[in-house]
């Protein structure tokens, strides 16, 4: 429990008879990108849902900057600095890309009583929205209706919206899902760029991307942490190989065999 900005203890979530997340202890540090790997159904998205408050935990606790936030609502968690993106694109389809980000930025300066002011004239919020769009590589797409953006651009918008809420902790659920090679490369660049100012939890299937950006990797299987450590350590781990490549795994390199699941 050193200087972790976000830390869980014994975090668990039960769905009926299934332990989707079982006694997970994980720590996020500012300036570090912590990737979570695991086969489908390993509990990665459930873990993010527990951290963001979308799901209540069955057991265990979450501490943020030393405070227990286990029972905090999702909107409170967002306001104290925990932002998340979604695996299935979750944007305001009918609004422009700019308005998507503007609403996100407005959540930091909501001013609900300023009913005589035009929200579009509130410069600090609009500037923050434009900055987030530019950071995610969407500077040219501001006036586009979100539903008309390409799939990759919608994924970028998803990230731009979280960035616009100026979070300290970023929980990213498969930001590369369904992206083309070029889009994926840009997203990896973006992740590298924003890591120094954030504590990032990245759930991702793309092994190349994960090994390119992660400072720490946790491998989950059946809701439990199988192995956790630096990328080199994970790559060398026999337990991880066994879980990923089958019982009698040879010496095959994880990054070659497992990419683009």
């Amino acid at each position, binding site marked *: 429990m050193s200087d972790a900005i976000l830390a869980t203890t014994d975090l668990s979530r039960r769905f009926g008879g299934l332990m989707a997340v079982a006694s997970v202890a994980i720590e996020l540090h500012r300036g570090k990108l912590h990737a979570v790997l695991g086969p489908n159904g390993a509990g990665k998205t459930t873990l993010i849902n527990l951290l*963001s408050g*979308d799901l209540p935990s069955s057991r265990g606790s979450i501490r943020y900057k030393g405070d227990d936030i286990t029972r905090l*609502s*999702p*909107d*409170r968690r*967002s*306001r104290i600095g925990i932002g*998340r993106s*979604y695996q299935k694109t*979750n*944007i*305001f*389809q*009918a*609004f422009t890309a700019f*308005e998507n980000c*503007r*609403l*996100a930025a*407005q*959540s*930091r*300066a*909501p*001013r*609900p*009583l*300023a*009913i*005589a*002011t*035009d*929200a*579009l004239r*509130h410069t600090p*919020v609009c500037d923050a929205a434009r900055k987030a769009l530019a950071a995610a590589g969407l500077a040219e797409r501001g006036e586009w209706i979100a539903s008309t953006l390409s799939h990759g651009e919608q994924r970028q918008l998803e990230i731009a*919206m979280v960035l616009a*809420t100026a979070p300290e902790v970023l929980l990213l659920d498969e930001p590369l899902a369904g992206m083309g090679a070029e889009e994926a490369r840009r997203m990896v660049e973006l992740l590298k760029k924003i890591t120094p100012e954030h504590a990032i939890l990245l759930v991702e299937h793309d092994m190349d991307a994960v090994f390119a950006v992660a400072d720490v990797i946790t491998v989950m299987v059946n809701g439990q942490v199988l192995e956790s450590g630096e990328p080199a350590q994970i790559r060398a781990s026999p337990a991880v190989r066994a879980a990923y490549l089958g019982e009698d795994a040879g010496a095959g390199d994880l990054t070659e065999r497992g990419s683009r699941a």
Partner: protein
Amino acid sequence: MKRSKIALLIALALLALFPLVGATFYTELVTKVMILAIFALSLDLLVGYTGLVSFGHAAYFGVGAYALALLAPKYEAANLWLTLGAAIGIAGLAALLVGMFVVRVKGIYFIMVTLAFAQMFYFVFHDTKFGRGSDGISMNFKPEATIGGVNLFDLGNPTHVYYLVLVALLAVFLFLRALLRSPFGRALQGIRSNEHRMRSLGYPVYRYKLASFAIAGALAGFAGYLSAMQFGFANPELLSWHQSGNVLLMLILGGIGSLYGAVIGAFAFVALQELYSYVTTHWQLLLGATIIALVIFLPGGLASVMGRFKRTLVGEPEDE
């Protein structure tokens, strides 16, 4: 100048000139329609901009009307400003209290719970001494609009009532337009579009929906007050579920999620009602058929006609 602004000014000019040419009967009818337009505008804030389909909005209309009827002294005229302020406040408070329960639920449950509360309100006025039963309350005097002892206008005069209601309609329209452009209004539209994401972006969605419900209730109370003021009585029928249904139909006719649509819908609804009841006693059948046809062929409501026409002719993209 933008086209929508020109349309607004033309409509306003027509409405302002109408009492000069129309017979008293029509002046009073249009007054009634403008009151319904305020009512429809208040519901549009919920249905069209917050995504809350209330099937019990007449409750707050009725509360506004009863507020005047109950507050008016028996043997002298009530003060317009005091009773109006009180009516809006009471209706808003009633909506706030009901809202604390109903905005927690969604979809079909929200529809049913708002209806249930409205029925409760109905029977409170219908079955208690307080509401004086099914006949309601008649007032002996119209409210007086005095400021510093000077009577500004005479609410016994239909033309004066007409202009007061016209100003009220314009005020509510402009208020809602400003509100919807404000950060608060934009957040409501975000909630309508994707409530889940709004919560994860850090918005206390419950409070926003509750505020919207209370504001809509207060504005409905405003309309109800004006109705009681115009006709001199309040009765339980003002709160009946027919009323809640009619105002929803006005929105569907005019176009949900458009302030113009709410006003156009109120006019269209009453015009069709008058027209069809002139043709047949079974006017509701024709009205129903009209609404079904409209939903099928013009799902955006009457307010979308201009845009659709434009697009068909010159292939312009759909704008707001």
